[in-house]
């Protein structure tokens, strides 16, 4: 996998491939971009999901470094090198392992710019993957974006398609702030339109991939695909759904969200993470604060159950957010 050429470029690429291409481009563009993570160099397999495959062959193992199983040490090394001009991309193999490195992320990466009075900055990217529905159970499937979005000083990004993943990851690496870039394991090998090599998606800007008039579905990552499926189904009943893909969860694009809801007068926030205290609560609350009197009904929220991600397929399916949940919320609001 490498940077796409203008000629012979594939029309469609996979999500994982898009991430690989974004890192290849960033590394080619800026010698200060380095990668750190467990098993990421080619000799160790190019990453457990092959997202970094080929990069150490292309850029060498000085810049693409396989690390010990040491999440604190990985993020710490990324923080330290970022303080003196590097743009490290640390891979935390699975999002649950971020818990081990939370001190480095929350107390250091997020705060060093502020606590130093702007003398230093931490332009690091932490790539991580997660996602339920594949029977990996409680410690390999959590969506923890709300924790991170709650910490001032961090940006949190989740792409919903390969082209966005390419453009957003490139922006994340080049951003002067620490960015958590969340990839979705179950959708790594889904395909989407290939981006042009110079395709860049700015952080902090949502997209509106589907316009509608009756209700806004505000979502990100995996929720976007599910929302599209529901919107398509309801279109047959003349219910017109608009979809807002946040792309950046923190700081979220309040302007685009409020503009959409001001038009449709109704909203459902959709995410895969546990519903309680999730990002949906924040977005819903902002909408209520700004548009309460105009709304057709209270903003709906769809998320997964208040339990650890279960192992058994039957319970996992029941726990997880679904298209049926989204449809039910929409009907509840629109009567």
């Amino acid at each position: 996998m490498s940077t796409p050429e203008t000629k012979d470029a594939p029309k469609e690429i996979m999500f994982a491939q898009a991430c690989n291409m974004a890192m290849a481009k960033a590394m080619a563009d800026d010698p200060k971009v380095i990668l750190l993570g467990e098993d990421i160099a080619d000799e160790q397999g190019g990453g457990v999901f092959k997202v970094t495959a080929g990069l150490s062959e292309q850029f060498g193992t000085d810049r693409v470094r396989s690390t010990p199983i040491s999440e604190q040490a990985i993020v710490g090394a990324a923080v330290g090198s970022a303080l003196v001009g590097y743009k490290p991309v640390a891979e935390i193999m699975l999002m649950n392992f971020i818990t081990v490195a939370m001190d480095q992320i929350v107390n250091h990466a997020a705060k060093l710019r502020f606590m130093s009075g702007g003398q230093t900055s931490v332009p690091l990217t932490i790539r991580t993957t997660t996602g339920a529905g594949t029977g990996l159970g409680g410690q390999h499937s959590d969506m923890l974006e709300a924790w991170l979005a709650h910490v001032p000083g961090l940006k949190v990004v989740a792409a919903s398609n390969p082209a966005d993943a390419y453009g957003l990851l490139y922006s994340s690496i080049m951003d002067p702030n620490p960015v958590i870039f969340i990839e979705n394991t179950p959708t790594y090998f889904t395909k989407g339109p290939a981006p042009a090599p110079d395709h860049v998606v700015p952080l902090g800007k949502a997209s509106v991939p589907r316009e509608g008039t009756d209700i806004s579905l505000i979502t990100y990552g995996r929720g976007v695909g599910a929302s599209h499926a529901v919107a398509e189904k309801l279109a047959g009943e003349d219910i017109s759904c608009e979809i807002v893909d946040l792309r950046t969860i923190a700081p979220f694009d309040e302007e685009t969200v409020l503009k959409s809801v001001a038009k449709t007068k109704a909203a459902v926030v959709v995410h895969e993470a546990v519903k309680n205290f999730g990002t949906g609560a924040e977005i819903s609350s902002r909408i209520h604060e700004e548009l309460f009197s105009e709304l057709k009904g209270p903003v709906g929220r769809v998320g997964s159950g208040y339990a650890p991600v279960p192992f058994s397929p039957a319970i996992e399916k029941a726990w997880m957010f679904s298209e049926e949940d989204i449809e039910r919320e929409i009907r509840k609001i629109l009567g």
Partner: protein
Amino acid sequence: MSDTQMADKDVLIDIFTRADLIMQSDIKFRKMIGAGQLQIVYYPVRGQEVVSAAMMAAVNQEDYLVTIYRGLHDQLAKGIPSKDLWAEFAGKMAGTCKGKGGPMHITHPETGVMVTTGIVGSGIPIANGLALASQLEKDNKVTVCCFGDGASNIGAFHEGLNMAQVWKLPVIFLCQNNLYSEHTPMAFATSSETIKQRGDGLGMRSVRVNGNDASEMYAAAKEAVEYARAGNGPTLIEAMTFRFHGHLLGDTGHYIPEAEMEQALKDDPMPILRQQLLDMQISEADIAAIEAKNKEIIDEAAQYALDAPYPPGDEYRIDVLDVEIAA
């Protein structure tokens, strides 16, 4: 290491000059806080002056330092100007970090002070990152990472030392072993007899020295710096020292046995170092001149810190991200 040679005269004077600045600063901080002139959390460093002074005399200003909340001695020894440091301790806009860091979070890149952390042990992985950058840049810098004995009990210590050794990073882990982590004596909470053993266990070059002996500490520091600069990798220095006051100002240190404290005070490194200078035929007048100059620097810095204005309240919106955040 009684066979350690005495350091050169110029080196000892340099170490004394730094150490005396630290001692006088510590005394002045405690005095001003006690008198209500400053209302800040303060972690006294009296007793540990020589460890830092000797270590920082062995590195250059461009070399990096990562330290912890009990870091005044490290920061002064590394060369942060007293005025800037005092103003930051006082929370003023003129401070190193515009008053947003405070005593526990000092950063001053001009003198290589990259991080001061309030989380015990967590500076170790970050020091690795600075050293990694130096290794990649081939800029010949070393990173010094200071922490106490208590830090060797957190996971980051083990993860960080392991990675540094595997990657042969140019970093010096300076454990200032003052025998107490907060209120807990080392033997109560640390399974190994020495911290050096833990470095040995990780395959790292590890030494244990009397950190209160300027010549011995300097020799160990210099050797570690040369080892790192030559590309051989990290060293763990366990520098034995003592803390003459409680964990933070206001803590009486009641948990330190009286006899232990008495002995420590008898072994106070500062009068010993001063006597060593006299023994080397450095005149009382020359030493007094160093002390007077330091006093002048500190008095000026303290007054500067008191007089300087606080930052405006909405300064909190700056430096969260690279752009100003909304109110």
